[in-house]
């Protein structure tokens, strides 16, 4: 009924959990930062720059680099691989239908990803990621010229499947040469998702609305309701 991957292609469909102890740091070290890259890293302020604190997505590549035990759900068809990250509700689509990146893509949080299979390994190339996102939780930033190359290799072990990710970043604005890191995920039984992203919004948005209501009230008293046309 549905589009199955060809017989020899591994099927990544399922739920995966990162194994924190098998994650590696960036190499080479020290980080080959440009002076601009070093200055934005030094200026990093988690209270302002960390999208996760505002219930926004992590964006690519930070979403695949997370090592906290939050499931990554993968849906694989012959034309597309879809990642759903449970924590923030990030969704990434990796197009396998042979398309290229758009000529003048509009940057967003997930970026534009195309991929192809080489044996047991899925190779993914991603461009057009917004500069508002961080590369990882350390506060490392990037420009819109950043290119992310990932290989996802399926390894079958006696104690279950592993997915080995090698992730390489090229960004002339922040890095003098490419940097690389690795992650390992283990396959877990599918569990009904906890809709955690929604609950993030519930807490954070409530606080915002309370402030917003106070502001609206002040505005109403000062100017009358006519100025509130179209207010959220």
């Amino acid at each position, binding site marked *: 009924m549905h589009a199955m991957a060809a017989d020899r292609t591994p099927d990544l469909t399922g739920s995966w959990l990162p194994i924190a102890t098998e994650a590696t740091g960036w190499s080479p070290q020290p980080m080959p930062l440009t002076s601009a890259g070093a200055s934005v890293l030094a200026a990093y302020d988690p*209270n302002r*720059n960390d999208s996760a604190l505002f219930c926004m*997505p992590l964006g690519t590549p930070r979403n695949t680099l997370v090592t906290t035990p939050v499931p990554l759900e993968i849906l694989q*068809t012959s034309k597309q691989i879809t990642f759903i990250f449970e924590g923030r509700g990030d*969704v990434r689509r990796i197009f396998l239908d042979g398309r290229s990146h758009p000529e003048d893509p509009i940057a967003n949080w997930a970026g534009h990803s195309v991929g192809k299979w080489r044996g047991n390994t899925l190779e993914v190339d991603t461009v057009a990621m917004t500069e508002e996102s961080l590369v990882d939780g350390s506060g490392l930033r990037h420009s819109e010229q950043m290119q992310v190359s990932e290989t996802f290799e399926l390894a079958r072990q006696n104690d279950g499947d592993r997915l080995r990710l090698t992730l390489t970043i090229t960004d002339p604005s922040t890095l003098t040469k490419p940097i690389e890191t690795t992650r390992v995920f283990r396959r877990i039984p599918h569990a009904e998702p906890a809709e955690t992203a929604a609950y993030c919004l519930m807490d954070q948005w409530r606080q915002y609305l309370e402030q917003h209501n106070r502001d609206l009230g002040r505005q109403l008293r000062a100017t009358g309701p006519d100025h509130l046309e179209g207010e959220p």
Partner: protein
Amino acid sequence: MKRSLIAFTSALLCANAAFALDISGVWMPTAIGPTGERNRAWPATPPFRPEALAQLEEYRANYNAVEDDAGRSCLPYGMPVQMLGTAQYPLEVIETDGRITVLFELHNDARRIHLDTKAHPAGLLPTFMGHSIGYWQDDQLHVETVAVRSGGMPRPHGPRMKLTEVYRGIDGGESGPMLELMMTLDDPDFYTEPFTMRQYFRRYDGLQMGEYFCSEDLWRLNYDNIDGEIPWR
């Protein structure tokens, strides 16, 4: 007169002809069906129980536009309204072994329908989307959903709500292939009897799903001067 009536009727039948449904892909909700008739989504006068109607009237009397609209508070609409919107936000259906996943552009929501499960597990925690199981029969997808988080004013439901959905492909004529959803809501806590709603979707092949993050305003309040912070801009 009679002949044209027959022609009109057969055109109607033809336009509504069911066909083998390939549900995978991008769909856009639409308020207008294949022959120009409107959706019958949420009914104007659902068969409320008297106490439910009293709750609704209280909700309306105290309505706060900023706090009480699910969309404005950035929460998912959840079922059943999740499938009944007519705003122009697409959804993507992905079919994998034993499962149908629906990704909504609006609010970046996801819904999962288990085709490899015959019964709902016991002890489910209520969620916005609930727990859905389904099966294919005669090219129609049948889905049953329970364990939906109570609430949903002004289209309320309680903890015992059961939703039954039937999806079928129809020929939308000039609109191309369409998806018809018939959804029956059965909730003894809020309604005196089950009622059925209808929603149409148009196929939008090639449309790339966008991103939608409701808390973007919140983010912008704290982070509105990216140009000033980035040396290479």
